[in-house]
């Protein structure tokens, strides 16, 4: 068993209203960051876990995402990185 750090992005599904992203974009423009076009806010989940190898760590995390971490109705997920701890 090796310890791995796996990180995932869980993002609101394209096309859904993202009030948080909109609030951030508005605020940034109010603060003078005029170049801001669009903002989306999702979750960044970092998991430390023991697994036989990187591939099985990744497999386990994908399963966690589809089971619990992401809502299949409104969210998409993507693995952002797998590295030994």
């Amino acid at each position, binding site marked *: 068993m090796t310890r791995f750090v796996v990180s995932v992005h869980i993002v609101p599904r394209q096309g859904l209203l993202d009030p948080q992203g909109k*609030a*951030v974009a*508005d*605020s940034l423009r*109010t603060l003078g960051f005029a170049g801001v076009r669009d903002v989306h806010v999702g979750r960044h989940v970092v998991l430390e876990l023991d697994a036989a190898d990187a591939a099985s760590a990744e497999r386990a995390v994908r399963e966690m995402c589809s089971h619990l971490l992401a809502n299949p109705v409104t969210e998409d997920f993507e693995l952002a990185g797998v590295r030994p701890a």
Partner: protein
Amino acid sequence: MTTHATPRPGDPAITPALVAEHGITPDEYDRVVAMLGRTPTLTEIGIISALWSEHCSYKHSRPVLKTLPTQAPWVLQGPGENAGVIAIGDGLAVAFKIESHNHPSAVEPYQGAATGVGGILRDVFTMGARPIAMLNSLRFGSLDTPRVRYLVAGVVKGIGDYGNCVGIPTVAGDVMFDAAYEGNPLVNAMCVGLLREEELIRAKAEGVGNPIIAVGARTGRDGIHGASFASEDLSAETEAKRPRVQVGDPFTEKLLLEASLELIRSGHIVAIQDMGAAGLTSSSAEMAERGDVGVTIDTMKVPVREAGMTPYEILLSESQERMLVVATRGREAEVKAILAKWDLVAEVIGEVIAEPVYRVTEGDRVVAEFPGTRLVTDCPQYHPEARESDAAIERRTRDVAAIAEQPEEADPIWTLTRLLEAPTIASKRWIHRQYDSTVRTSTVAGPGHADAAVIRIRGTRKAIAVKTDCNGRYVYLDPRVGGRIAVAEAARNVACTGATPRAITNCLNFGNPKKPEVFFQFREAVYGMGDACRALETPVTGGNVSLYNENPQGAVYPTPTIGMVGVLDDAAHATRMTFTTPGDAILLLGEPREELGGSEYLAWIHGTVAGAPPACDLDAEKALIDAILEAIRAGHVRSAHDCSEGGLGVALAESCIADETHPLGAEVDLSAWPALSRRALLFGETQGRIIVSTSDADAVTAIATRHGVPVYRIGTVRLATDGLTVQVGASRWTAPLATLADAYHGAIPRAMSRAAAETVGTEGVA
């Protein structure tokens, strides 16, 4: 006796600099050396710095606090415990307490306010009471600055998220905005709980051999030295202490609440206390002191969140959602089983011992040892010098009548509308609609409905009424009078709902007590509170002192926040503040006077905080309270609303528009006081006045007269479409309700809508 403790390898040498860094004065250090008969260890220095901080020791305030009245037949527990307790009949009792989280909220508004709510909840449920209501008393600088809006948004969200998640309704409070609070917001949270008298449990360690158990969340490095932090002025250096903030976990708190109440009812434990400020140190030392017993604690047994924590860190950590329990020997397994049911940890970390010492070990090594309970009892007490500041005297004695009216004031509706949009007066709905006020299905009158919140007591006909109050401007201008008014206003608010005021808790928010002018404010304000508590028969059952609320620009207004609890024998008598029925007579109980000093009118319209605050006649207040209670109980009162900030004019307008879904108009004639200036009549803040609407003016008049309370029929409730009409002598003005309502309900939302840009970082958890 001499005590023994050895420094840990790697501990720094005990130097004057290290002692000073811990906020311990050279004199205090000498006392410690004398007590121990040797040089203290680093761990001991840490313990002393926490326990002898103002926050834990009350070293500057205790002698003055002792003057407050604390007794009445219904008081079951006065000051000195986690919360005060009063009997309300039927074998039931109410536990309540208020506490400040000012400094943490100034640094991190969301977590600071949230953990303030968490702490005060634990104070109440450790008495064996189930929390049934939360209140919050807030003071901020002007809403015109982005920093203040950021603080408001964060504090309100923090209070809401925590209380909402635990499932305790937040039902009342008070909020004021004034530049005096600019760098130092005040965040005071109050909790009220319900218990059966026989379930009352005290935090007193007893029984040699009984295990001491740490319960709840694990201990991490957060908030180390929060208690001494709460006893310093805010400065640039404070900013560097930021990582000391604590993060709250209301979900764990909810589990801890259920587990603690189950533990208390199980009979397996003898004492329980929150690990609040100064964490394990203060909870264990205070429990030992109350029971006059010795204790020993092994820091290696404390469940920790991070590896490598030192005894110093474990003792001083302010990780939230933790409790210290003294169990009956032999019941450890039962205690653990109850905690396990709620998915929480419980570990035996020490024991009550016969030997009169307070001892901390790390495994076998003794790292701190103090004789007997002297750690608590030997803390020095100070009697600082008190002198009124010249600036306050100058302001109080200024002739405010000489302040010229602005041209627009020729139309008093203009002035009234401006006052209704003053954030201190305007509806606080933007705030309290973020608080779940109806969970527990017992809220008879929630925030914004009545002068105080009314919560029914299930299984009885009874209800309680609760409210926080304090006008710091009055206290600044005249501390003694201001202290009296704070109590009198809270009592009046509670009485307006039909409840008999019974007792108070208080949170004394002041500046640096070592400054003579601050200590003068403190002493006089407490004396004033005492005067009022005696006159109104509302003893003090506990409270909290928050000093050093100042920054380089100066101290906050002295703000002794009062949390009042009253009792209604019949919840059906609960009375709201807004008019209910067109055609009802509008009566004024009490007498207007030429008093503009300290008013919101002067502050908001003229930018002036000056003049003597309104007088406070405590006998008149008592008579007024008795009269309104009798009238309400006789069933004659449709609405009752006291006159506070903004005076009679604002109170009348609020009676018309505060209930947005059901506005009503009014026609009022105030010609009976030709000797008064129009602005004092409309906007002066003379105390001891209540606006009543009634279908039986004669009956209310007779009751008031019998109590010696002046009473005037000043008008009639009208339809909303009639607006609010006010006549003084030959002049008559009418305001459409929509204008008034827009000012009153729209002011804070409008100000805060500008805040979006500053609040994103306050997201907190989902």
